[in-house]
């Protein structure tokens, strides 16, 4: 992540009487997978369109691969592949014909066009469907064809808008694998989604959009520290007397909440697992399970929006 390939500074987009994107700043490094998170209408797609020069920013600056997409959109669009939300193709043309049209627009030489189209289709696993009309394609196949277009372009940056939404689990899984293979090729990937588990698995860093602003940005553990207050959660299952009291007695534990007969969830400032094991053994209890609760983006997201709405209500009151 030595060089920054995308830099946005104070990016703002105002529509009539409504601010869709409000002073967004972020950078994406070479080879990074960067995720834009947030509910629908939070400004993710508008931000993406401004990066491509497809929408004029009201204020702020963007630099993509060292170029201003407003001033030299063609140069930017030559190196950046974009797959819009629910990508569409010409239904009456075959997969190959669809790609041939964009290949001509990309100015790929006629001599190597067919070979590159074949290679791109093979990469996304559509070789056997190459000459079928797109009309019969499933959503997952269309998404893969969209990715084939990015592969065909040989893009240095791939921008994917909601690539996995509306896919069945298997198709989503396949698609994440394809994105990962792009990353291995050194392609910088910027994707937007509200599928949190997908984002957590594939993104190096994420930015959380809320009402046109980036509310949080960083790696998932960093976000966890910010939102969950640096506390980690531990789940303990044990049999014995007064276990709750024993657990509460351990220094560094902030809260103990029972989750059933023999199960408690603890919050702590630091890693308290060795202390818990020791204390329970000393208290003659049977330790059945001691587990660090994995930090999930889901948790961070829900906690964040809970605090947002509570804060909002307090504000309104």
């Amino acid at each position, binding site marked *: 992540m030595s060089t920054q390939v995308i830099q946005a500074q104070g990016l703002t987009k105002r529509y009539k009487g409504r601010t869709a994107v409000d002073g967004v700043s972020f950078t994406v490094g070479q080879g990074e997978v960067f995720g834009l998170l947030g509910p629908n209408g939070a400004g993710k797609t508008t931000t993406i369109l401004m990066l491509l020069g497809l929408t004029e920013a009201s204020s702020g600056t963007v630099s993509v691969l060292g170029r201003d997409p407003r001033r*030299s959109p063609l140069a930017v669009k030559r190196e950046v592949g974009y797959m819009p939300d629910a990508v*569409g193709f010409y239904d009456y043309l075959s997969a190959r014909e669809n790609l041939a049209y*964009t290949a001509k*627009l990309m100015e790929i030489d006629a001599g190597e066009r067919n070979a590159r189209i074949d290679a791109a289709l093979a990469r996304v696993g559509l070789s056997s469907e190459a000459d079928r009309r797109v009309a019969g394609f499933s959503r997952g196949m269309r998404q893969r064809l969209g990715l084939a277009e990015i592969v065909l372009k040989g893009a240095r940056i791939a921008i994917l808008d909601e690539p996995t939404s509306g896919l069945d689990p298997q198709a989503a899984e396949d698609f994440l694998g394809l994105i990962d293979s792009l990353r291995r090729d050194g392609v910088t990937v910027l994707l937007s989604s509200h599928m949190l588990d997908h984002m957590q698995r594939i993104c190096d860093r994420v930015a959380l959009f809320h009402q046109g602003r980036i509310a949080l940005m960083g790696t998932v553990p960093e976000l966890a520290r910010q939102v969950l207050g640096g506390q980690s959660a531990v789940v303990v299952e044990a049999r014995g007397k007064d276990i709750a009291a024993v657990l509460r007695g351990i220094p560094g534990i902030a809260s103990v909440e029972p989750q059933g007969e023999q199960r408690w969830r603890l919050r702590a400032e630091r890693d308290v697992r060795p202390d818990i094991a020791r204390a329970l053994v000393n208290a003659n209890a049977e330790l059945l399970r001691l587990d660090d609760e994995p930090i999930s983006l889901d948790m961070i997201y829900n906690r964040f929006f809970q605090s947002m709405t509570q804060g909002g209500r307090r504000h309104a009151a």
Partner: protein
Amino acid sequence: MQREGSPVQGMGVVLLKELADHLRSGRMRVLEWLIILTAAAALYGVFQQIRNTTASDPFVFLRLFTAAREPMPSFSALLGFLVPLVAIGLGFDAINGEYSRRTMSRLLSQPIYRDALLMGKFLAGLTTLAVSLLALWLLVVGAGLFLLGVPPSGEEIARSLLFLLLTLAYAGVWLSVAMLCSILFQSAATSALVSLGLWLFFSLLWPMLAGAIAQVIAPPDPLALMLGQPGIETLQWQQALERISPSQLFGEGVLALLVPSTRTLGPVFLSQLQGAVIGSPLPLSQSLAIIWPQMIGLIAAVILLFTLAYMLFQRREVRA
């Protein structure tokens, strides 16, 4: 802000793709057959009628285009009626179709400007029309050679080719109207209805309305009323109003081009006829001089409508 790169980058690619789409679309095939069949019906009657006058008429080939036998209208009148239909059929979903297929943002993320997309689509429509019209013209001339047994003169060829050019300009007007509607309205059905509505309004209703409006603007003076004739001012207003409609401009152009004896398109004064040999044909250059304003008017309308469409398209958001 100055933007880099050529606005026509990729236009040729868009043009060829759209042209291929048009030429193999079922829609175009239906429209072509509609024209060919009606034209055949119109010409059939005409051939029977003018075969007898082949020897006496110096412009017998042009009569193919203008002669009519009840109940069919003449070939040129039919074209004036059907060509807008084809043009609208080619253009009404040019832009909103890309949106509804969700191909617009994918297309514009390729290294082209919107200019290339719009111009490519417009030129593809115009080329399709030109190809169809030329084919139709060749069919008519071929049938004329075959059935009349006389070759067309050079001037007849020139006049009928100019007629072709005029028809193309007229078609261009309706193509740009349809494309403008395809930008204005998100639904292709609305766009088609509005374009067809405008076409019906301007070719059927407006000629009737123009007379009434002229009466209101310039009521006939008592002298004219006494003679039972409309006043000269009323007539001038009526003609000016009628010429707002592209179909009126087209009709006048056809008249002057295909009927060489046409001397004027407005009211005629006796003083203007001094020394004129009534009924004798004008040379081509003089006929051209008569319809020059009509021709320029049609071309200007195409440019104006296209510019308007271009401006609206540039302001349109990519996600809609």
